């Protein structure tokens, strides 16, 4: 006898969850997550309400704070979209992390050859380079999968390690290390190649607009085009598509190229929009966080944008919260994880219902 049965209740799967049930389940999950976070704040000796207040103030309190939230959200939109496209097709691309690096590195490699030329030449090259770099790196995993049946989870994770150390190699004593520099980073890139700032006295750059355009394009691609038809079909039953004459290997390659290209843009936007240098610190963790963002966003492009802004707000507000209340900003990663776990639990719970069983 299970615990629920002892209580005279029984968990049953629902035939179909209604939207209202889902919203209720998710809202209560979010509430539970907030309460747990509050306990966490209390445990480090801070009033949860004032911590939350500081978090919100830091994230949206001023115009500058709000734009900064969007700056933080930008790479997450790209990696979230990258993950969403792959996951929609049931391709478990865990390699957005590495594809971010690959996109940034290939963009840098192309652009550095053109340093000193017009921004109208350099900016397209930077973006194109990021698309190609990220796409090809993900394509490698696709070929490993279709040719040699290597599971994409394994290959993409391994490729993440390779590219991080490859960058380290290039920066440490390699051709990319800054002349006379002490840190593991390149020299500053040509100002003509940097993404324009959208508003004065903010750091919000063109990359954010590109991210919104990318979200719109992904939405159109998936919903409306024959290619998106294949992505969605692959997510449900690739075999049926194959029986109807679609080349499975082509679909896998295509999905990974698109996914990798989107992740590559995240690397480009961080390097040319925020840091103006290639360095590991500018690129790390966006790929992995993108997976969480994609899942929170229900693999829907607009959901991804919202989830990315939420995470951007958390990261951005955390710094202010630390200054104001002394809560370590590292706590924010615990909060991110708590939100994801409760969200997933809430989603799963909404597929069930509790029924009273007769005593």
């Amino acid at each position: 006898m299970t615990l629920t049965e002892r209580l005279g209740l029984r968990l049953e799967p629902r035939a179909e969850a209604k939207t209202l049930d889902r919203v209720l389940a998710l809202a209560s999950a979010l509430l539970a997550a907030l309460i747990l976070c509050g306990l966490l704040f209390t445990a480090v000796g801070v009033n949860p309400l004032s911590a939350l207040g500081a978090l919100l103030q830091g994230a949206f309190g001023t115009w500058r704070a709000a734009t900064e939230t969007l700056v933080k959200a930008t790479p997450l939109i790209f990696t979230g979209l990258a993950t969403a496209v792959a996951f929609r097709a049931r391709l478990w691309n865990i390699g957005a992390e590495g594809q971010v690096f690959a996109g940034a590195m290939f963009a840098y490699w192309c652009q550095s050859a053109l340093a000193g030329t017009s921004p109208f030449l350099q900016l397209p090259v930077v973006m194109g380079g990021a698309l190609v770099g990220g796409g090809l790196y993900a394509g490698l995993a696709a070929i490993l999968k279709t040719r040699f049946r290597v599971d994409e989870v394994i290959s993409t994770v391994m490729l993440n390690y390779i590219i991080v150390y490859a960058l380290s190699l290039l920066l440490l004593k390699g051709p990319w290390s800054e002349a006379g520099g002490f840190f593991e980073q390149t020299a500053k890139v040509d100002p003509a190649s940097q993404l324009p700032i959208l508003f004065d006295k903010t750091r919000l750059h063109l990359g954010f607009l590109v991210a919104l355009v990318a979200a719109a394009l992904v939405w159109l691609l998936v919903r409306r085009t024959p290619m998106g038809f294949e992505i969605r079909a692959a997510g449900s039953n690739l075999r049926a598509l194959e029986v109807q004459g679609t080349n499975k290997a082509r679909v896998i390659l295509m999905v990974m190229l698109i996914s990798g290209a989107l992740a590559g843009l995240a690397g480009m936007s961080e390097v040319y929009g925020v840091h103006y240098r290639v360095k590991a610190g500018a690129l790390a963790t966006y790929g992995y966080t993108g997976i969480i963002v994609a899942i929170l966003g229900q693999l829907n492009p607009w959901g991804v944008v919202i989830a990315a802004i939420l995470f951007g707000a958390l990261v951005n507000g955390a710094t202010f919260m630390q200054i104001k209340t002394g809560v370590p900003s590292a706590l924010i990663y615990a909060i991110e994880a708590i939100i994801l776990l409760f969200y997933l639990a809430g989603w799963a719970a909404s597929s069930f219902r509790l029924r009273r069983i007769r005593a």
Partner: protein
Amino acid sequence: MTTVPRLAVRHLTKRFGALAANDDISLTVEAGELHCLLGENGAGKSTFSACLYGLLQPDHGEIEIDGRKVELTSPAKAIACGIGMVHQHFVLVPSFTVLENIVVGTGSGLALDMGTARRKILDLSRGFGLELTPDRLVSDLSVGEKQWVEIVKALYLGARLLILDEPTAVLTPLESERLFAVISELKAAGIAVILISHKMNEVMRSDRVSVLRKGKLIGTVRTKDVTRDDLTMMMVGRPIAQVHARAKTSHGKAALQVVGLRLKRGADISLGIAAGEILGLAGVAGNDQDELLETIAGLARPERGRILLDGEDLTSLSVQDIARRGVGYVPSDRFRDGLVSDFTIAENLILGQHWDEHWRSGPFLDDAATAKNAEAAISSYSIMASGPEMLCGRLSGGNAQKVILAREFAKARHLLLCNQPTRGVDIGVIEFVHREILRKREEGCAILLVSEELEDIFALSDRIAVMFRGEIMGIFPREVADIAVIGPLMAGHRPEAAA
């Protein structure tokens, strides 16, 4: 009857939202009785048996076993009450032995008394005429033997009421016979058996039949008091017209020619089908019928040989190119190979043609055109659906099959490859499928029909071929082919050339 029935169900009702899957069902099953539960797909047979096995809880109603009221809140409770169930899809661990599969989950405490278990299993299987070797791996067993393991497992757990869910769906005719022999042993031992089936010849071997239709019990009758037609009438609610093709004698020129085709195993296959002719391919499942059809459709490459359609060699063409030449292919496993469950009817109808100009406006899919196409298919194939936007995963088996037929029949201008078109669908749908296939023949399409249901083959074919282990054992005109000719060939026995 004066004795207490083994099972008594009173006013059982189970609702899913607005749908009453079981509506006020009352019936009894006696010890030693073979009681058949008959009904079309969606009539509520599965819901009823799930309630009996504790997988679902009824909203109202009572269940009594041997006169004692029981609350079946879980399968464990049902087993404890002496109810056993053999599912249509077996739930065995392939890498375990027969013995391990039977005792798994039965021990109390940490130790399993394998010695006693083995003796008990041997006693049970000998007693009921089942030949089981406890130490063989389940993965090495035939389908029929796996079913025996399931039955012995239920008996081992003390079943006095055994529910068999479509048990012969996966069996050869011979294996089905043996199953019925086992069932009579079970009856003799006083075990009540509930048989869920829609095959009339099996239903007629039961003691009593309960007919379900749309969740309601239409009636329980003694089998010897009724005819097949009576039961069909009860099940469907209207008389069914049997479609029978009259074999054609004259045909046009050969549309499909298969010359010296070699699959992974077996001998070279050569056959021809004329335009407007149906060639029925009889054979037990798993004798490479799927492989033959997939090879013709371009999904697999032959070891050697050629496939010609109207004289053109298809052998090296892609699936898409073959389809463009007017070939339709209805796969046997419709939810695995035929449909994308998460797609709408409209989307599934253009599966594989989604790049065609026809379904596009500019770079985008033309939703209006695909919806119109779907509406036309829904009405001409009478698909029971809320509209073009209904997800195919929510369709019943018969309606899902109709979606595939609509797509493939539209593609099949010259050749139609039809694999198990009536598997698991209702009598009404079978009738419909037969009529559509014959209509396709009238249009001058060459048709290769594979079916495990010999009734399909005999009803529709102009000529009948028998396939065994990747080899064509013989091709006969419909008039001379009967079960006496075909049966032995299906089992791989060639007749002696000369007496």
